[in-house]
């Protein structure tokens, strides 16, 4: 048992393992870069970097792209292929490589590297690498990204998730200006799912779920063989078509669902819910509910009002020079009322969140500004680890250089100094 264990420790602490892991890391990053164009950035992160193993489909996508490197030009896989099963792990993913590197580093330091002042640089560097890997895991787990878009003059107290949707039912609370809201995350909206909630006077049954869709008005003369999408609401006069999910950063999916509601007295009918349709009213149990499928909201304990935007381009061109939003913060909790400027390379850090100027448009419906809202409690990690790695390397190389120069001086004292053309003298 003990020899087995010591052999394991030997393998886990070996430089060979470190080199093998670094090599795997390079291959992984290379393949992940290639797969990005066909698979889209989010899916690549999920399948290559934030995964323990990479499956054969993703590798196939990368290899097909790589074939273009040698002018073989294999066609990319069809978009639906990425969702297919089974997915067989064929290559270590980012988490596995990172995790093993962590183990390797810790084992090596515990089992092998002796503490000496000459090794302090390496120690510091490796500690920084450990912190960096751990920090990245925390960032993956804890950070959230959302979007706050508003027009000039508009006030908002929430941001919206970029790619997560929610189905909401809301009704007014009598005698107040508030509403009571039941939110169902889109992850629960699978075909055939049945959802009950104590506050809802009906059961929600999901007939069809569309990850990406397009809904249009049903033209009875044209769409003769198409039934309306739903029996109630907007869906009575509409049809919905499934679209392949989009993956690139420039396009968004337009989710949709056909839901069936049934109360205590039986079925209420079916409704078409889609990102293209705003609030639909539903009468149930003597109350009026408003139903909507919309990006998931993150409510803020304060509100932002977009006062003015500034969209500058270089004279005589369309090249943007500056995007700037003047925003008023109203925070009833702290009693703060102040104005700030948010622009490129100058984000606002407020209330544990960071607000970055991301989009700007002045064509549609007035002046429009989009802020990227990021919550990342472990943002300090990379800064700390970087400082440690940088300092460690600097220290290590300095120690080596001093030793090397010392040795050169010693040898110079005993040998003839190198001439301008040492090889010439020796020639043949």
């Amino acid at each position, binding site marked *: 048992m003990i020899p087995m264990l010591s052999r394991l420790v030997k393998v886990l602490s*070996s*430089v*060979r393992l*470190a*080199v093998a892991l*670094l090599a795997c890391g*390079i291959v992984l*990053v*290379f393949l*992940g*870069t290639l797969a*990005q*164009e066909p698979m889209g*950035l989010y899916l690549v*992160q999920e399948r290559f970097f934030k995964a323990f193993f990479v499956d054969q489909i993703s590798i196939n996508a990368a290899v097909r*792209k790589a074939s*273009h*490197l*040698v002018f073989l*030009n294999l066609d990319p896989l069809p978009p639906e292929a990425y969702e297919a099963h089974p997915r067989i792990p064929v290559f270590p993913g980012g988490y596995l490589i990172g995790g093993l590197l962590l183990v390797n580093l810790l084992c090596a330091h515990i089992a092998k590297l002796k503490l000496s002042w000459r090794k302090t640089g390496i120690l510091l560097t490796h500690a920084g690498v450990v912190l960096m890997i751990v920090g990245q895991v925390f*960032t993956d787990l804890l950070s959230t*990204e959302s979007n706050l878009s508003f027009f000039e003059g508009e006030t908002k107290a929430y941001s919206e998730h970029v790619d997560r949707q929610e189905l909401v039912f809301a009704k007014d609370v009598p005698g107040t200006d508030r509403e009571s809201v039941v939110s169902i995350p889109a992850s629960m909206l699978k075909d055939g799912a049945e959802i009950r909630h104590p506050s809802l006077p009906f059961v929600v049954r999901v007939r069809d779920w569309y990850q990406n869709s397009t809904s249009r008005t049903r033209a009875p003369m044209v769409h003769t063989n198409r039934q309306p999408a739903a029996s109630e609401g907007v869906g009575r006069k509409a049809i919905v078509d499934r679209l392949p999910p989009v993956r690139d950063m420039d396009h968004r999916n337009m989710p949709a669902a056909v839901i069936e509601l049934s109360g205590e007295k039986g079925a209420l009918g079916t409704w078409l819910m889609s990102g293209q349709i705003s609030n639909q009213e539903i009468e149930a149990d003597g109350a009026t509910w408003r139903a909507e499928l919309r990006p998931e909201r993150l409510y803020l304990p304060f509100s932002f009002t977009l006062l003015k935007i500034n969209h500058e*381009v*270089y*004279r*005589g*061109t369309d*090249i*943007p*020079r*500056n995007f700037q939003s003047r925003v008023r913060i109203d925070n009833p909790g702290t009693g703060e009322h102040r104005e700030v400027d948010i622009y*490129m*390379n100058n*984000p606002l850090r407020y209330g544990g969140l960071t607000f*970055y100027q*991301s989009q700007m448009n002045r064509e549609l419906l007035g002046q429009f500004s989009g802020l*990227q809202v*990021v919550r990342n409690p472990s*943002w300090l990690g*990379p*800064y700390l680890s*970087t400082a440690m*790695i*940088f300092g460690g*390397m600097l220290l290590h*190389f300095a*120690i*080596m250089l001093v*030793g*090397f120069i010392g*040795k050169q001086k010693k040898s110079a004292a005993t040998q003839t100094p*190198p*001439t*301008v*053309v*040492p*090889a*010439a003298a*020796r*020639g043949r």
Partner: protein
Amino acid sequence: MKRWIPWLVALVALGCAVSRIVPKREPGMAVAEFGRLPVVFNGRVQPFDSVARNSLMQIRNRQTLPDDKAGGTMEAMPWMLELMLKPEAADARRVFRIDHPDLKALFGLPLDPSGDDDGKHYSWNRLQPRFSNLVEQVAPAEEKAATTRTTFEQAVLKLHNAATLYMRLQNTIQPMRGTNFAAELAAYQASIPAGTLAFKSRMKGMDFQTNALVAMLEYSERYLAMDGMRAPLILPPDHAEKEGDGWLRMGDALLQASIPGPLFTHIMGKKPLPQEEAEQMIESVGTVPMHRSIARFAAISTAYRANDTAGFNAAVADYRATLDRPFAAELSKVAWETTFYRTEPFYSAQLMYVLAFVLACAYWVGLWPTILRTAWWLVVVAFLVHNAGLVSRMLIGGRPPVTNLYSSAIFIGWGAVGLGLLLEHYWKNAIGIAVAALLGFASLIVAHMLSLAGDTMEMMRAVLDTNFWLATHVTIVTLGYASTLVAGFLGLFYVGLGVFTKVLQEKDGRNLTRMVYGILCFSILFSFTGTVLGGIWADQSWGRFWGWDPKENGALMIVLWNALVLHCRMGGLVRDRGLNLLAIFGNIVVAWSWFGTNMLGVGLHAYGFTDAAFIGLLSFAGAMLAFIGIGLLPLSAWRSTSGQAKAGTLPTRPVPAVAGK
């Protein structure tokens, strides 16, 4: 005598480079003087001369053209001046480069050179009759994503862009097909008082003089079309707070004297204005005086068209004098830029590098020390010229050294040569010189290729517009590229000299490996720091430290690769030869990170220039693999003794060479 040869050669080289600073005397029209006038194009103040060079580069892929009429070659500035002021003559010049056979077929051009035709370059007059054929092809090509366009569609868009640019330039000073700008201007001015009065009456629903309005609108419509061409902005404001602010296009300025452009498009229903704004504008119609510089440009045009040398020179001097006081800063910047382009410091440096490299190779053949010293001084002079060019670019643009792919090539060359010189200074074994000369030359060639794409001093988009991060992240990561390449090229010399020559002895091999090792330490420090600074920039700018973007990934691969090589060495997995071979592979990693990742964006099978670059990248990688293969030959096949160190002479687990004991 021998002692003086290196100095003499270096001095001559320096003299040649420096002598180009002095402008050639112009016996006739002061065209070059005109080229030193400022203009706003691509969002920045630059000399007319730069607009001319970059435009001709985009249209013809060269900065000059053969002068069919007078013989010899024609520079870019005289060509553009003719295009702007005497377009009927310029239209006969063969400036449009067309290579794609299908595109030639589209214009009904013969595929091969015949008679007067060189089979590559065509004049506007030659293309114009069938231009609609091209325009038909543009929309379908534009609709497609850049990655899916065929070679033909790429060629269509390139030619269309060239033609658009050509027409923009034609509309810079005088309206299209104007034969007498001064006379036209006088007639237009004469029509304004009655014309604007009629216009105002008409807008208020009162009676108006139709003739007066029509007479003015005839001109205004012409100038609206002229303004729509988006020509360079040549008319200076009274004063500008930010660089480039307030400059006007000729068409725009001409319109302002009668009906301003926005009001015009408002009335035509193209771009409606808010009611209040429109009313205010109508009220102020006819009150704006003609821009003071318009008449001066008209005078320049008249003199040029009349071939009146004295008149032209006087008119240019007259206009320039009006700029002296308010635009002193712009004028000196623009003069510097003109000198920079005329001097072509990178071209001079390139020639010196290649000469130095040949000398270094000759040294290994004959082992004549004077040759080596000559090569050393040549590289030093070339490096000085390289520096001068780099610093000039920084001062002209007001930017850190690296702002785009072009400048990264210049800077990588600079860093590599600097490192090579340092190595040579320390080790004195000719390899530092050879690496410096080779990398200096190669990187400047790459830069030259990249400069074909257009203005290399373009403005930075808002996200990138931060000198702090450009100066830190971009500069350091680029130095990481440069040093990794230096290590890789040292590896090439280890293999090349070791296998093919007898000059690399055991001790030389050991020293070379130490150099590689030391440089690699430098590389990992720089590539890591640079990459992480990029992460910090991203975190500061959009809240994501790491986004797995292709360029980020490329930089990460260099860091990982350098870490791998250093761990192989520290762990004793490789010895001298192995370290050198790994370093050579590092060249491929850098090439991927530097160029490969950029090509992903436009599609790996994009054509045109990118295609050539892509083949270049592939051949480079192939060559590196070939060197690694050669390096793996059994040691008995090596002519030098460097690789033949017996196993016993090396410690079984070598301590880091530089660390020493």
